[in-house]
C-alpha cells in the first residue's frame, strides 16, 4: 500500500510537469504578443520592446518556461531598477492587463470558487445519493419513476439556462431574494448566504442528477449480489444490510466520480460564476480568455490541473481504503 501511494504520487508529479510544459508551450505558440497587449492600442514600439524585455518574452521559449517553473518555487523578479517589481513564490506569472501577480489574483478569486464548490458539493451528494437510494428501495413505484425522471431532466438541462431561469424567477419576478452580490462570509455572513444560495442550489440539483442515477443503479446491482443474499439469510436488519453491504458496494464508483467532479469545480465553475456574477476563478478565466491575458490563463489552468491530478491520487488511495481487494493483494 505504501509503495502504491509513493508510486501514485511520483506519477502525479510527472503528470503535472507535463501539463505545465504543454500549457506553457501552447500559449507561447499563440499569435498574440503579450508584450504588445500589455500596454494598450496606442503603444510605441519602444515601450513594447521594453515591456518584452521586462517580462522576459525576448528570451527563447525554453528559457521562458524555465523562469516560469523556477518562479513557482522561488518567486520571480521583473525588470530592473526603478520599474522593478517582484512576485513572491509561488509565482505563476504577472498579468499586465490587471497589473498584478497571477498568484495574488488567484488568491482573491479562489475562495469564492471554493465556497461555491464546497457548498454545492455537499448539497448535491446529499440530494443525489438520497434520491437515488429512495428510488432503489422503491424500484418500480412512483418514487422510482420520479427519481428516474429527475435524473433524466437534470442531466439534460444546461446550467446557463436553468441558472438564468432561476435568477429571473426568484430575483426579478417574485423578488424573493435580492440580486446576488458576493460578500466574503467573514465580512457579512448573511449577505454571503443570500448570494450563494441560488448558485449552490442550481449547481447541486443539476449535478445531483447523475449521482441519483449512479446510486440507484449501483444499489440495485448490489442488492442482487450473492453476499447481500447471505446477509439477509444471516438475519441481519435491513438497515445493517443497506449500510454495510449494499451502500458499501454502490459508493465505490461514486467516490471516483465525486472526487473528479469536485476537483473540476475547484478549477472554476465558469458558467455558474458567470450567470450569478460571482467573482470566482472561473469568471476570471473567462475574462482572461476575452482579454488574451495569457499569464492568468496559464496560472488558472495550472491550478485546475493540480486539483484534478491531486483528486485522482486521493481517489485512488480512497479506493484502497474502501476496497480491500485493492489494498491487500
Amino acid at each position: 500500500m505504501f509503495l502504491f501511494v509513493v508510486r501514485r504520487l511520483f506519477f502525479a508529479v510527472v503528470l503535472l510537469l507535463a501539463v505545465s510544459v504543454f500549457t506553457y508551450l501552447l500559449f507561447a505558440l499563440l499569435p498574440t504578443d503579450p508584450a504588445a497587449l500589455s500596454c494598450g492600442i496606442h503603444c510605441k514600439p519602444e515601450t513594447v520592446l521594453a515591456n518584452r524585455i521586462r517580462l522576459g518574452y525576448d528570451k527563447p521559449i525554453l528559457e521562458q518556461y524555465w523562469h516560469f517553473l523556477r518562479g513557482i518555487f522561488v518567486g520571480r523578479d521583473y525588470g530592473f531598477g526603478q520599474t522593478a517589481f517582484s512576485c513572491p513564490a509561488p509565482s505563476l506569472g504577472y498579468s499586465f492587463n490587471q497589473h498584478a501577480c497571477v498568484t495574488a489574483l488567484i488568491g482573491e478569486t479562489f475562495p469564492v470558487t471554493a465556497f461555491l464548490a464546497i457548498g454545492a458539493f455537499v448539497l448535491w451528494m446529499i440530494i443525489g445519493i438520497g434520491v437515488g437510494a429512495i428510488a432503489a428501495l422503491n424500484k418500480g413505484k412512483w418514487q422510482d419513476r420520479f427519481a428516474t425522471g429527475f435524473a433524466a431532466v437534470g442531466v439534460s438541462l444546461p446550467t446557463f439556462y436553468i441558472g438564468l431561469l432561476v435568477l429571473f424567477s426568484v430575483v426579478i419576478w417574485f423578488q424573493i431574494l435580492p440580486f446576488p452580490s458576493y460578500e466574503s462570509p467573514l465580512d457579512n455572513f448573511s449577505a454571503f448566504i443570500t448570494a450563494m444560495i441560488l448558485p449552490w442550489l442550481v449547481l447541486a440539483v443539476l449535478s445531483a442528477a447523475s449521482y441519483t442515477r449512479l446510486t440507484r443503479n449501483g444499489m440495485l446491482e448490489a442488492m442482487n449480489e450473492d453476499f447481500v443474499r447471505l446477509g439477509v439469510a444471516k438475519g441481519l436488519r435491513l438497515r445493517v444490510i443497506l449500510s454495510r453491504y449494499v451502500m458499501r458496494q454502490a459508493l465505490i464508483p461514486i467516490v471516483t466520480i465525486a472526487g473528479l467532479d469536485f476537483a473540476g469545480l475547484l478549477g472554476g465553475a465558469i458558467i455558474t460564476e458567470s450567470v450569478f456574477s460571482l467573482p470566482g476563478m472561473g469568471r476570471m478565466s473567462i475574462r482572461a480568455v476575452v482579454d488574451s491575458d495569457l499569464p492568468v490563463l496559464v496560472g488558472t489552468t495550472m491550478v485546475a490541473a493540480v486539483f484534478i491530478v491531486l483528486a485522482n491520487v486521493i481517489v485512488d488511495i480512497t479506493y484502497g481504503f474502501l476496497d480491500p481487494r485493492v489494498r491487500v493483494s
Partner: protein
Amino acid sequence: MSNTAAPVLSVQNLRVSFDTQDGTVRAVDDISFDVYAGETICIVGESGSGKSVMAGSIMRLNNSSTATTEGKILVNGIDVLTASEEEVRGIRGSEVAMIFQDPMSALNPYFTIGKQIAEAYVVHHPGASKREVHDVVLAMMIKVGIPSPEKRIDEYPHQFSGGMRQRIVIAIALVNNPKILIADEPTTALDVTVQAQILDLMMSLQKEFGMTIILITHDLGVVAEVAQDVIVMYAGHIVEQSHVDALFHSPTHPYSWGLLGSVASYGANKRGDLYTISGSPPSLISLPAGCAFHPRCVHSKGSGNACMTVQPKLRDVGTDGSRSACHLTDDVLISIGRGSDRS
C-alpha cells in the same frame, strides 16, 4: 419417512410465480413435502426445475416485489410466508441457515471473514461479549477446517481459495447451531477433490450438530453420496419422492428413469450411446397442459390422453415409500423401474 414426530419443516401447497415482461413464470407449482429432524433430503432437478426458488422461499429470500408466493411453509410452527419481518429475521440464520452455490461471490468483499462470522453470531446473541464472540468465531473456523485460524480471522475473502471460502460460508451458517441447513448447489462451483472435502465436512458437521440438511443439486452423484430421501423436481413440480436406494434401484417416474439413464452409464467404462431424454425442459411461462413432462416422455402415448390433459398427482407407489406423479399404473411403474432397460 415413517416418522411419527412433527416435521421440522413442512411445505404445503407452495406456489411461487414471477411476473416478467414475457409473462408469468410459474417457477414452483403446488408442491408439498415434510422434512424431519436430522435427515438429509436432496432436491434434484435440472435448471428451471424450481428447486432454487423453492429453497429461497423457505427463508423468504425471493424478491417480494416481483414474486407471488402462495401456500404455507411451517418452521417451528411459524408460517414463514405470513410471519412478520421481525419473526422471519429471528428464523433466518438461527433456525434455518443457508449455503450458496458460488463461494466466490457469497462473502462480503469489504469485511474480514472474522467479522462476517461474528456478525452472524452477534445478530442472534446481542448480549455476547467481545471475548465470547471471538472465541466462538475461532472455534467455528477450526470446526470447518481452516488452517491457522488466529491469523486468517483478519483476512479478507479474496485471500481465500474457493474451497476455503465455502468452508467460511458453512461456518457462518452453523455458528448459531440451526435446526435446518439449506445447501443450494454447495459444491457445483468447486473442483471434484474440493467437492469431496466439502461434502465430507457437511456430513461430519451434521453428525456433530444434528441439523437437518436440505441439499439442492443437479448432480446425481452428490445425491448418491449423501441423501436419505430424494425429491425429484421437473418444471416446478415434484415428480418423484423416494428413499435414495429406491430412487437409484427402482425409480418410479419416467423422468427419473431418463435422468438416471443419462448419467448411469458414465460409470461403466464402455462407449456407446447414453440414454437421453429427447428435447429440452419446457418454458415455465407456457407449460404443456397435463403432465409437464409428457412432450419428452416415451411412455406418454401408452396411457391415452390423460398425460396431455390431466396433471398427475403425487401418490404412493409400491411398498417402499416411493411417491410418483405419473399416470402409468403402479405395476407398470414398478416393473419398468426395476428393469435394467428403462427406455
